[in-house]
């Protein structure tokens, strides 16, 4: 029967099949699923390279190649779905970036050349170094193992209300209007216009394909669905969406285009922006709740963007509505890798929060996660931002927030590995006669300042030239000032509150704590013995264990807890006092993303008993084995105490065994943890609830569990798509956490 329930079952089956096929085509990805479908038979793109650098840049380069890639996309229509469209490939795949390059493209001649010429997984040819070199920054960037953000794309948020108001035709009219006002910006407007027309062609190919499916379809119910699908596409080809279904379909097409461009991953306040359409359609008798749920489930399947739910408005009034509930129900019905964030405020509907926790415990798929409205708002306002704007800032990325349409935050793209900073400080102190913990801390602070300075220089370089390298042609369509001024968002954002994260907090805090405990207080070890142990990577296991068993960060009231707080103070003051050009300012956070293995590989043995090359600590989390009882409350307290306080996050990543039942007691226990951590000042909570036996079995045979979703860090991913090394990381973290 062609019921919603059966159709959802079929859609899930297709998703599982796609996950396995993509694994074969792409290899292991260690990334968000992004909602892609496998590459179609015969798919081929011939990129246009406009730089002697061997890559493509700027308005013409990005526009031309966007058109080539989206034009090569065949329509995606599934008769079970109400919405259509999917994406399969993106521009960065043709710029030699190994971090994203799927296996199926590695045989491409140009890419073979990139690989042969030493492309790495760090941005490679994405930045035009011929025109905008930064060789003078590279030595210090390497010294402190900095993820520079230079040519990081996307990582800001569109204002979807602009698109819902204008539609694709409205974009074209707006381009025409402002082209006349800014005649010197024709290159910009030409590129924008061509991109919008390419998206319209993409929609038109879907219309044509649906038409041919209708002609051959015998089943009346399916035929009717296809007819409505076609009509929806026709309505939004030029016009703005008018109904709930049209708004969902419009979002699906725009997101496909934005993903093809730069796999951009920012969604919107979904229960807020879609609510007027829902309300209107229900009033007009053309939408019921079951259909609304199905449409949302379909949208989540098409693209697991970071969508936010609930929260309060400028006047602190609860924004939870009936649609908020339906969205949770919809996510439950499709139950895939969803990146839903529930915004928590004391004025929010508590029944809604309970329902959100219930689904987290029931489905064990890592969604939703939770962010703290109050701490994020109060913190962001400390940057001189008014309350209304601060309230608009929504959770749209792994660890990050953004004011849609207005902000250019580069969030999650800039990181300093502070374990590496500590290593440099230790090296410097080695040659000094007098060694002490305080002296080490002094040198650490000096290196940290250098690291922040060189990072800031990189950020300024990026913002100054991003428009000439990777202008954001698709996202520009729904930003303020862009089309109006004929400028890329990197040039004309209202807010340049740029995020900069520290990674490796627990490693460094525990290192200082271990030195204080074993060398200074107990005198069980000398400085010379410590240096010898670090240099020979702990030949003597007893020395390693002596350091590793010193009181740790998050145990509660320990020296390392104090060090974590002290490090946070220094981190915040160093970042906030860093001068930036123009109206830019930096915002500190603690987050490693999923780079713990990569960062760890660059750092030798550390005084907390960590061996050379082992992963660094994850985000703001404590090191493994921080307490024998693994008490979640201890972790919550510790992480609440090291928040940076300027509106960016230091997330709490919790791993739960599902012994917590989905009954009232289990839900209350988890909600109590969430509410209390937020009351203490915590900012963001990511929770994995996994079945231990299933996880261990899936680690052995991932293909047997293609629907198992885990929250890797800020994002959720299919376990089967992760590399063995990454799977092990998730397993280890989980076993430690339960």
């Amino acid at each position, binding site marked *: 029967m062609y019921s919603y329930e059966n159709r959802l079952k079929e859609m899930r089956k297709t998703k599982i099949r796609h996950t396995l096929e993509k694994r074969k085509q792409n290899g292991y990805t260690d990334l968000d699923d992004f909602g892609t479908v496998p590459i179609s038979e015969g798919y081929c793109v011939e990129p246009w390279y406009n730089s002697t650098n061997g890559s493509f840049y700027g308005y013409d380069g990005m526009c031309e190649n966007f058109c080539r890639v989206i034009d090569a996309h065949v329509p995606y229509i599934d008769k079970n779905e109400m919405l259509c469209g999917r994406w399969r490939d993106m521009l960065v795949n043709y710029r030699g970036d190994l971090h994203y390059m799927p296996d199926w493209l590695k045989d491409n001649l140009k890419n073979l050349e990139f690989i042969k010429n030493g492309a790495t997984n760090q941005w490679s040819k994405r930045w035009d170094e011929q025109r905008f070199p930064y060789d003078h920054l590279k030595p210090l960037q390497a010294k402190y193992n900095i993820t520079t953000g230079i040519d990081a794309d996307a990582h800001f948020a569109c204002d979807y209300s602009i698109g819902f108001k204008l539609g694709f035709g409205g974009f074209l009219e707006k381009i025409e209007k402002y082209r006349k006002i800014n005649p010197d910006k024709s290159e910009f407007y030409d590129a924008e216009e061509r991109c919008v027309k390419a998206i319209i062609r993409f929609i038109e190919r879907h219309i044509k394909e649906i038409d041919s499916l209708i002609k051959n379809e015998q089943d009346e119910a399916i035929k009717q669905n296809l007819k409505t699908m076609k009509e929806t596409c026709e309505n939004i080809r030029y016009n703005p969406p008018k109904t709930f279904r049209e708004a969902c379909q419009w979002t699906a097409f725009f997101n496909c285009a934005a993903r093809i461009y730069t796999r951009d991953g920012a969604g919107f306040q979904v229960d807020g922006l879609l609510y007027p359409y829902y309300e209107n359609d229900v009033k007009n008798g053309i939408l019921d709740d079951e259909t609304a749920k199905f449409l949302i489930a379909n949208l989540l399947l098409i693209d697991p963007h970071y969508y936010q739910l609930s929260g309060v408005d400028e006047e602190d009034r609860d924004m939870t509505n009936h649609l908020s509930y339906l969205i949770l129900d919809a996510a439950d019905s499709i139950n895939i890798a969803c990146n839903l964030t529930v915004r928590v405020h004391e004025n929010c509907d508590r029944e809604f929060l309970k329902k959100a926790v219930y689904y987290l415990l029931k489905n064990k798929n890592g969604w939703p996660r939770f962010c703290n409205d109050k701490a994020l708002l109060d913190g962001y306002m400390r940057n001189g931002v008014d309350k209304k704007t601060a309230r608009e800032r929504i959770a749209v990325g792994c660890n990050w927030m953004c004011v849609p349409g207005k902000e250019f935050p580069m969030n999650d793209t800039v990181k300093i590995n502070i374990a590496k900073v500590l290593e440099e400080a230790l090296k410097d102190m080695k040659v000094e006669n007098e060694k002490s913990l305080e002296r080490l801390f002094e040198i650490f602070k000096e290196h940290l300042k250098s690291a922040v300075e060189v990072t800031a220089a990189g950020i300024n370089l990026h913002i100054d030239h991003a428009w000439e390298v990777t202008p954001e042609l698709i996202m520009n369509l729904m930003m303020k000032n862009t089309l109006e001024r004929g400028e890329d968002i990197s040039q004309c954002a209202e807010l340049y509150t740029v995020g900069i994260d520290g990674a490796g907090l627990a490693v460094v805090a525990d290192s200082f704590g271990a030195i204080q405990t074993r060398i200074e207080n107990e005198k069980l070890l000398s400085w010379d013995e410590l240096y010898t142990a670090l240099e020979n990577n702990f030949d003597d296991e007893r020395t390693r264990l002596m350091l590793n068993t010193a009181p740790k960060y998050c145990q509660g009231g320990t020296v390392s807890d104090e060090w974590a707080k002290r490090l946070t103070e220094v981190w915040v003051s160093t970042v906030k006092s860093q001068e930036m050009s123009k109206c830019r300012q930096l915002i500190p956070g603690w987050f490693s993303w999923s780079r713990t293995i990569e960062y760890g590989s660059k750092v030798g043995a550390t005084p907390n008993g960590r061996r050379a090359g082992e992963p660094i600590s994850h985000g703001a989390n404590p090191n493994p084995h921080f307490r024998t009882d693994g008490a979640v409350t201890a972790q*919550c307290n510790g992480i609440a105490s090291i928040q940076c306080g300027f509106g960016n996050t230091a997330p709490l990543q919790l791993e739960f065994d599902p012994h917590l039942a989905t009954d009232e007691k289990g839900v209350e226990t988890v909600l109590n943890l969430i509410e209390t951590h937020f009351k203490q000042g915590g900012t963001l909570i990511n929770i994995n609830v996994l079945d231990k036996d299933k996880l261990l079995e899936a680690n052995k045979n991932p293909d047997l569990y293609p629907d198992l979703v885990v929250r890797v860090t800020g994002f959720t991913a299919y376990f089967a798509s992760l590399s063995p090394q990454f799977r092990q990381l998730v397993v280890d973290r989980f076993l430690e956490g339960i």
Partner: protein
Amino acid sequence: MLKGCIADIERAATHDGPGLRTTVFFKGCPLSCVWCHNPECISFIPEIMEYPEKCIGCGKCDEGCFSGARVVCGKEMTSDEVLKEVLLDKDYYKTDGGVTFSGGEPLAQPEFLEEIIDKCKNSGINCAIETSMIYFNEDIFKKLDLIMCDLKIWDTEDHKQYTGVGNEQIKDNILKANRLDIPIIVRTPVIPEINQGIEEISKFLKPLKNVMQYELLPYHPLGEGKRRSLRLKETNFSIPNKEYVKELEKYVFIRK
């Protein structure tokens, strides 16, 4: 200031009473139940638990072991030191969570226990106890919010055989505690090899108005590793199967 011997303090416990709790394990117990899952809490003095599989062979046992091969169980603590640990999670206790005094037998260190309870109560913390009910201490009981106790075997001779003491005193203390108007939860560990008289226990408890709940705790072998570490003989009791426990569940009750 008084000092007591504490085996361990666990935070974020969800199985030692309502809400999120900190469980303080007192060291020392006058009973010696053969199935005890906290055998390190039987002796009243600090002792060394050995885990030879963790030994790194450094040969410096006397200078302190860091490998986890030799772990000292039992620490002399003041009530302020215990309170400091308990207060760490105060934000998470809310109305129903709090501290649970367990062990071992907390009532075997009555003055120390009372001092901690007083300090916790002054800090507004909900206090519960897990006791064998071998002692009746009205002053202490009256300060508590919840009493969780065991009635392990109905027949006193069997009780003596498996726990080292008869159960007349325990039954009498349950009756006395019932008069104090403090909610009581009574539990029986379920061990298939022993005839525990669960039906009789249930009948005994049913009329007692303050016994809010009678529950069964299926035996689990988690204490066996600790028995080995203490060089004690392993017990080899079996884990009750689901059918066995289900059959017995007709005797449990929750008083609304």
